[in-house]
């Protein structure tokens, strides 16, 4: 495993979306042979970029029922993919429960201790807005490393307390006992403004880095709870020239990433 390239303030011409891709790629650093699942454009690009560069053993899926070799461009013709294994949903649970997976999910709401909500807004018994449902979030979060991607950071998505705990955060995992916390890890939260983690003594969300062009004040303003702010907040590391070339010419030539994060 190679360490990440040093962050510098030199201007690479990288867009905000490209910093988000880099931040998502970093989630997979050092994982070895695990199944990468990534929802959203920046996470999908990040997993593929990691696979092509510093995480060559990462196992990618076709988004359907196959594991694939290599790292195809976004929206690649399915017939052009090189299939290496069959991964129907029933087998996905074997992988989830074995822990050989690293996941970036979306979050409609995320809170200070890392609880995530994709179930419902308002009271669960009669929601003001029914969302997709908890899906696999409860099981994912207590079985393998999970991170979150929030393309629009706001006080509506970063809330003091989520309405329905779907993905389990640190305080809830700890309160639920050793079986819940044994394999629990919320590795990172990546938003369009910065990168966040829970590397504090009481496991609450702190700013790990800001994307260049964003200020700490802006992030605090856009967050519905009190973030931990270290004395010195670094910039999110910039992409290397090779990474930028891979993103722009190989993985996402049609610039889908700019539609997700303008």
């Amino acid at each position, binding site marked *: 495993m190679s360490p990440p390239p040093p962050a510098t303030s030199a201007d690479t011409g990288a867009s905000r979306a490209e910093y988000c891709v880099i931040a998502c790629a970093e989630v997979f650093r050092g994982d070895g042979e695990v199944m990468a699942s990534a929802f959203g454009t920046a996470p999908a690009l990040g997993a593929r970029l990691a696979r092509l560069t510093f995480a060559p053993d990462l196992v990618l899926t076709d988004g359907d029922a196959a594991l694939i070799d290599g790292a195809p461009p976004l929206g690649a013709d399915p017939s052009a993919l090189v299939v290496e294994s069959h991964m129907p949903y029933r087998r996905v649970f074997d992988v989830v429960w074995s822990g050989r997976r690293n996941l970036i999910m979306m979050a409609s709401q995320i809170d200070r201790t890392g609880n995530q909500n994709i179930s419902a807004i308002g009271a669960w018994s009669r929601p003001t807005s*029914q*969302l*997709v449902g908890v899906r696999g979030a409860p099981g994912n979060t207590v079985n393998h490393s999970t991170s979150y991607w929030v393309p629009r950071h706001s006080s509506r998505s970063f809330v003091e307390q989520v309405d329905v*705990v779907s993905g389990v955060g640190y305080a809830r995992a700890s309160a639920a006992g*050793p079986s819940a916390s044994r394999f629990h890890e919320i590795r990172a939260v990546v938003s369009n403004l910065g990168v966040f983690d829970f590397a504090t003594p009481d496991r609450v969300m702190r700013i790990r880095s800001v994307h260049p062009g964003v200020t700490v004040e802006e992030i605090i303003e856009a967050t519905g709870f009190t973030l931990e702010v270290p004395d010195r907040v670094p910039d999110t590391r910039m992409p290397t020239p090779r990474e930028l070339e891979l993103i722009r010419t190989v993985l996402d030539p049609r610039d889908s990433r700019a539609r997700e994060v303008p």
Partner: protein
Amino acid sequence: MSLDELVGELRSGMTIGIGGWGSRRKPMAAVRAILRSPLTDLTVVSYGGPDVGLLCAAGKVAKVVFGFVTLDSIPTDPHFKAARQNGAIDAMEIDEGMFYLGLLAAAQRLPFLPTRAGLGSDVLTVNPSLRTVTSPYDDGEELVAVPALHLDAALVHVNRADAHGSGQILGPDPFFDEVFLGAADRRFLTTERLVDTERFLAEGPLQSLCISRLLTDGVVETPGGAHFTACVPDYPRDEEFQRAYVAAAADADLWSTFAREYLEVAESDYQSATARTRTAEGGR
């Protein structure tokens, strides 16, 4: 058997499992037949898609057991959303892995199966009937005991079947259809095409024969019977029709027009009425 005979085997108040996943390989012809029937007060157990939405819209549902309800290319189903937001239905929302274990427990005649999934989440708080179990071994781990999800009936749609009730799934994912059938008292297949048993291995490899007649009580041939959900390799999701389904949910008048045209008609008329959009998106 026919769709009417299949529906004749069901009763109001039953717990019915529906195979497929999201907007993929759903037994939609059977769902449409339920919509036309007097059945009501159903508990629907589903990796939910438009099957759940349509049954909610028709007032057939007392309760939904789900981990998600999605149309895949459209994140949520408008009718399920409305039913939840209006408080029109009861709900049991569990992790999608717990859902699998609940069906598996029922299929194996066990009271529960243990898992880590659910611990620490609101799945345990919104379902106060869920219990945990402590490992009897030295580890002493406390795990969720997912109760058996016993089904009165299961409905599953497959690409090919024979008249004896063996089923063949030619798409990339058999989902949990086999487990739904195992968990149910009365088990029904609908199929794109009935074939002679000796045809099976010409249609697909041995591994595609994943549903044996040990698991089924009846089979109905329903060409296009998963429409508008995906039934690859026979046909992809009819995205244009799915968008029309969602658009029609926007108000009562639009919906009654949609229902008149597509739902209050015989299955054969549904198939001819929807041939247009299917042709338009053919091969996608």
